[in-house]
């Protein structure tokens, strides 16, 4: 069964550094998402992406965050200058249609900011 893949599985970075989290969505999916989960808390929506542009973003997704689909297969989340509170599990997800079949999530990238 096709799956969403995320790399790396764990990223450690120093405060103020830039990080790029990478995702390869399922190939025939058209909608792409990033969610995050701070340890012990619920999963929160960050951003959705369709037709090469952001469809919706949450208040968490400020100017420090950006997303890109550079080559038609990868979908990346960049955090320009990481803060301690950015430490979380980041999930990429994709869907064939707009949420109707349910999102397929990757295994997540655990980001640790020190």
């Amino acid at each position, binding site marked *: 069964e096709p799956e969403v893949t995320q790399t790396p599985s764990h990223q450690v970075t120093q405060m103020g550094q830039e990080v790029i989290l990478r995702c390869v969505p399922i190939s025939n999916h058209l909608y792409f998402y990033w969610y995050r989960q701070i340890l012990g808390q619920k999963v929160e929506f960050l951003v959705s992406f*369709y037709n090469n542009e952001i469809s919706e973003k949450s208040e968490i997704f400020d100017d420090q965050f950006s997303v890109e689909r550079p080559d038609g297969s990868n979908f990346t989340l960049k955090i320009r200058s990481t803060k301690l509170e950015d430490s979380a599990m980041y999930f990429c997800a994709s869907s064939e249609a707009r949420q109707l079949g349910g999102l397929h999530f990757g295994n997540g990238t655990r980001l640790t900011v020190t």
Partner: protein
Amino acid sequence: AQTVTQSQPEMSVQEAETVTLSCTYDTSESDYYLFWYKQPPSRQMILVIRQEAYKQQNATENRFSVNFQKAAKSFSLKISDSQLGDAAMYFCAYIDSGGSNYKLTFGKGTLLTVNP
């Protein structure tokens, strides 16, 4: 704004028994989708089951079934013949089916323990 509430932070069940996880939600929309996701210790998010609000029939997937009560805005998950591998955090989630709303709203989760 839509909200999803899971009132049981933790639940436990004996292997082979049945357990029901509760979820309520608040929305003014009439057309929407509801989901249950499972998150095992590996932290992966796995779709367990989904329900379209316009369907009166409750969704089932093997040992997993839901009790969808639209008027009461309730969406509980029943796990029959519980197995050790069912131990995980379970999240209830909601999405509008129309408009430009692309985001899932999650509840805080219920941690399910399965006792041998």
